């Protein structure tokens, strides 16, 4: 006996400010909460990056203003090495867990999934609300870690033991590291709650007629990303628990015998630092696909209406997303080629990693091919989506170097790695956040963002971004190690001293360019051009709801779907697009 499963019908009684905007269970409000919170954390992460660039480019300059803001870390106006490492660690942690995960996955995921599948809300709205309010303490704890004794954690976002397991091994390995672990644990709890909702909603709450192959690629990518998140995060939870035990309960999961730290021989015995690396990267690698897959899905959803053509190779793209997700879970060892892991195992990881290039390239080709034969409307959203294709290609090529065990020997832990991952989980994801913002802002707030500011924002993002991170690849080829407080003493880098300066100039240009977006956002919320329900003439379900949609999304009648997500250029239709809800009797469906 199959059951029709629907979310609870919306309550229409008068709600207080707190229950409407603060502790709301409406997926749209929660989505916006995530988006804004993530955005705020992105700004914070960017400021930390600015400080990192200052240190790397002008290590001998005395920054008196900064000494006032950070009396311990910038004592006397000069950055302390441990403060530098805290900045590097928290920049990475904040950007990955508190910016991209929140703004891209939780923000757009929460807002769009029920709307794009035709549901009134997520399957379990109360749990959804809890997931957001679990993130808030996580963020507060992470921020607080800067102000405790020893400062924030300084072992990188990767937190390798023994450095992270022994409080006396580094200043940041004291309370700062414990708080880091707690913040990450709360993040995992929150993200798990969210992912449970995303998967259940997509499986059970699709509207009548919305078969899986009629879903927009945004939903497919979010579904697949959520599944790998659910499968991969427990490994990090287990690893973090064991690290907390090693730090506070005297166990030796990661600590071998004979460690001599801070003048003492430690009593631990029997552990292995490699165990952490295996468990961490078992999550860590799928995690980056959790971040990038939704970006790819959103890029398709934005490209298609602005090209007025169906997504090229929709079915194959879905299969490729699944293939990437599956492969991503079995290649974690490519982060460990020189770790002391068995080299034979390393060879298998290398071969597996290079397989991912196949579905990834097909997806890239499908994106480009979706433009063929179209009539491009180069709005800000479209520009960012096109830029995403470029970033995905260039950054992805760097993956061929790093996945190749032999090449990785030279490139591991250099600026090449930093350049590569910034393209993928910083560039592709950030551009997708922007293209999604320009595209869905009218739906969320009933107004459009300024196109002029948007186009300026685009150029001031894409050009500096290339300047920073393409240069970084070459800096890494030259051998520059990452996580270095100061590289000036190394003679082998003499020929590339100009590179960090160029990177920093572009970095501050990039930061300045983002102000355009912030101004645009704030201004348009109040004074933006009003938008109707479907300003972009798009086909997916969210555009058949009002802008913004009311509580419950669809009013009296839930939508019924009669065709695929991308019916543009249907020869039987009068207009050049056919929304998903148009019955087949009116216009025959062609997919």
């Amino acid at each position: 006996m199959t059951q029709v499963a629907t979310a609870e019908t919306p309550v229409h009684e008068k709600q207080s400010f707190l229950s409407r905007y603060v502790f709301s269970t409406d997926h749209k409000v929660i989505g916006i909460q995530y988006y804004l919170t993530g955005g705020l954390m992105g700004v914070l992460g960017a400021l930390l990056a600015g400080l990192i660039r200052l240190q790397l480019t002008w290590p001998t300059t005395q920054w008196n203003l900064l000494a006032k803001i950070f009396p311990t870390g910038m004592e006397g106006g000069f950055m302390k090495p441990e403060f530098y490492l805290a900045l590097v660690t928290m920049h990475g942690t904040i950007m990955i867990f508190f910016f991209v995960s929140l703004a891209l996955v939780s923000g757009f995921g929460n807002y769009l999934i029920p709307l794009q599948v035709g549901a009134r809300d997520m399957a379990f709205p109360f749990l959804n609300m809890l997931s957001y309010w679990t993130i808030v303490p996580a963020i507060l704890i992470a921020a607080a870690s800067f102000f405790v004794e020893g400062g924030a954690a300084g072992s990188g976002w990767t937190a390798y033991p023994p450095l992270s397991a022994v409080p006396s091994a580094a200043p940041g390995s004291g309370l700062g590291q414990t708080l880091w672990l707690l913040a990450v644990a709360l993040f995992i709890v929150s993200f798990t709650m969210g992912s449970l909702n995303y998967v259940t909603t997509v499986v059970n709450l699709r509207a009548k007629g919305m078969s899986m192959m009629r879903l927009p690629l945004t939903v497919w990518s979010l579904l697949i990303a959520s599944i790998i998140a659910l499968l991969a995060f427990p490994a990090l939870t287990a690893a973090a628990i064991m690290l907390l035990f090693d730090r506070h309960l005297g166990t030796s999961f990661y600590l071998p015998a004979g460690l001599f730290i801070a003048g003492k021989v430690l009593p631990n015995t029997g552990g292995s630092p490699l165990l952490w690396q295996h468990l961490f990267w078992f999550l860590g690698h799928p995690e980056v696909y959790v971040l990038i897959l939704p970006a790819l899905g959103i890029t398709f959803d934005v490209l298609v209406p602005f090209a007025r053509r169906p997504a090229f190779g929709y079915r194959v793209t879905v299969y490729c997303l699944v293939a990437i997700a599956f492969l991503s879970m079995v290649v974690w060892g490519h982060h460990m080629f020189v770790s002391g892991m068995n080299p034979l195992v390393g060879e298998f990881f290398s071969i597996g990693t290079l397989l991912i290039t196949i579905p990834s390239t097909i997806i890239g080709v499908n994106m480009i091919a979706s433009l063929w034969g179209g009539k491009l409307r180069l709005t800000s959203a479209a520009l960012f989506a096109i830029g995403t294709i470029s970033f995905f290609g260039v950054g992805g090529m760097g993956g061929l170097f790093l996945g190749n065990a032999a090449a990785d020997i030279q490139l591991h832990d250099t600026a090449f790695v930093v350049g590569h991952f910034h393209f993928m989980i910083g560039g592709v994801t950030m551009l997708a956040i922007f293209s999604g913002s320009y595209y869905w802002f009218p739906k969320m707030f009933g107004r459009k963002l300024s196109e002029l500011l948007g186009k300026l924002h685009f150029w001031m993002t894409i050009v500096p971004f290339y300047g920073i991170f393409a240069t970084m690849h070459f800096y890494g080829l030259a051998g520059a190690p990452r996580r270095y407080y100061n590289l000036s003493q190394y003679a082998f880098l003499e020929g590339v001293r100009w590179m960090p300066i160029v990177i920093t100039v572009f970095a501050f240009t990039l930061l300045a360019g983002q102000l355009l977006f912030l101004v645009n956002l704030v201004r348009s919320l109040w004074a933006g051009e009003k938008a109707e329900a479907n300003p972009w003439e798009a086909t997916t379900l969210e555009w058949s709801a009002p802008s913004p949609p009311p509580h419950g999304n669809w009013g009296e009648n839930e939508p019924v779907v009669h065709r695929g997500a991308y019916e543009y250029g249907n020869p039987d239709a009068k207009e050049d697009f056919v929304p998903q809800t148009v019955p087949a009797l009116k216009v025959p469906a062609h997919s």
Partner: protein
Amino acid sequence: MKDTKSTLGVALAVMVWFIGIGVFVLGARRYLPPVASEHGKGIDVMLFYLLVTTGTLIVIGHLVLGYFVFRFSRAARVSPTLPGATAQRFWSIAPAILMTVLAEGGVLVLGIPVFGQLYTEDPPADAVVVEVTGEQFTWNVRYPGADGEFGRTDPALITDTNALGVDESDPAAADDIHELALIYVPVNRPVKVRLRSKDVLHSFYLPHHRIKQDAVPGMTIELWFVPTREGEFEIACTELCGFGHYQMRGFLRVVSDEEFERWLGEKREAGRR
């Protein structure tokens, strides 16, 4: 309106082209530190192959993307024909074959053999053996001396003057030669490194020799290479190990056979340290 849009289209296309060409030009091999080891040549072949193939793909990809943006932003109308099933299938199979050959083929033919050889071949018997122990924040270097044996170490014996905790009562320890952040080796002879760590993870990186290996506490990892050029080369640490991570600078001095023997003799006479 249309003019603005096509100007935008042109600007976008131009930028995209520029990226492609720029990357290709910049993607040159000249940034790599000049290679100074045997196996390093194999790694460089791998890197050059990757630079050429990825550079070409980036250029071609951007030329196509730029052309599409340019052409279809000026299109008067949408094309009336939709992409057929054959076209969609072709453009899935073609990239799949291309990447299988280029990426997977590259790693199988060029990469794995070099990587495998580096790790599975045993060093020749006449290799110069040196033990390198990373610590926060320097490299302790030790040679086994005439008896070819390293003296036993025990962390409990570590003091300010005995950084490795060498057990003085062990006869093999008497002739060990100690250095700090400095390794002497003869050119064109294999060097076997026994890599250890006293405290946290470090990583032994020789940029010119294409050598990188994490030093893991609790493990002794052996690697070997053949330096092919004389000179002084830097060592850097490439695994975050604390606030002094950037300071773990060391030197590999590759000298002639005679010079190496002379240095060895000098060291033996001076006794330990």
